[in-house]
């Protein structure tokens, strides 16, 4: 919501098992940014944003 460039999904993996397999998810919650960057566990908002900026090379 802070930036139009960002969109987010909550994904229930029991209904999207192929995503869990594709991303090699071992535990939840598990965050994936732009299909490539992974974060395991609960992530506070400031860390999430740092990781988003890293994912886009900033």
């Amino acid at each position, binding site marked *: *919501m*802070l930036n139009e460039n960002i*969109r987010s999904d*909550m994904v*229930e993996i029991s*209904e999207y098992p192929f995503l869990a397999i594709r991303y090699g998810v071992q535990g*939840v919650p598990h965050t994936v940014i732009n299909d490539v960057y992974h974060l395991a566990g609960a992530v506070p908002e400031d860390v999430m944003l740092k990781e988003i900026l890293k994912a886009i090379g*900033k």
Partner: protein
Amino acid sequence: MGLLTERDRAEIRRVLMEMKEDVKIVFFTQRFECGSCRTTHELLDELVELTPKLKLELHDLVSDKATGERYGVDKVPAIALVGPRDYGIRFKGLPSGYEFGAFLDAVLDVSRGAPSVSPQVAEEARKVDRPVHVQVLVSPS
């Protein structure tokens, strides 16, 4: 009685009183509903009874693929939360257990047009200058 107990309803009603603008729950299901589609549908039906500011907009993804594409939805059940604007917030699958709390938080944020984050985070977020897709994978709790 349904999925929500009287106590749940009272608590959720109290939470939803903090809503500002109306929020549209754009819900994608299919005519012959799978188990989780049916449960999600029931849950949403019960939820929108708790405040006039929540509206349910139903779509059958099979007969209305175009709307699904517009919202970036290709599987059911899926929910887009839309307030004054579409902020790109989607729930794919039934938001149950802990995720239901996150769902209500998202409804409030969308209704206020602003997420509840610190000013520093809001400031840093301005630096995002290209598309970012965040997927948080969860399991029923």
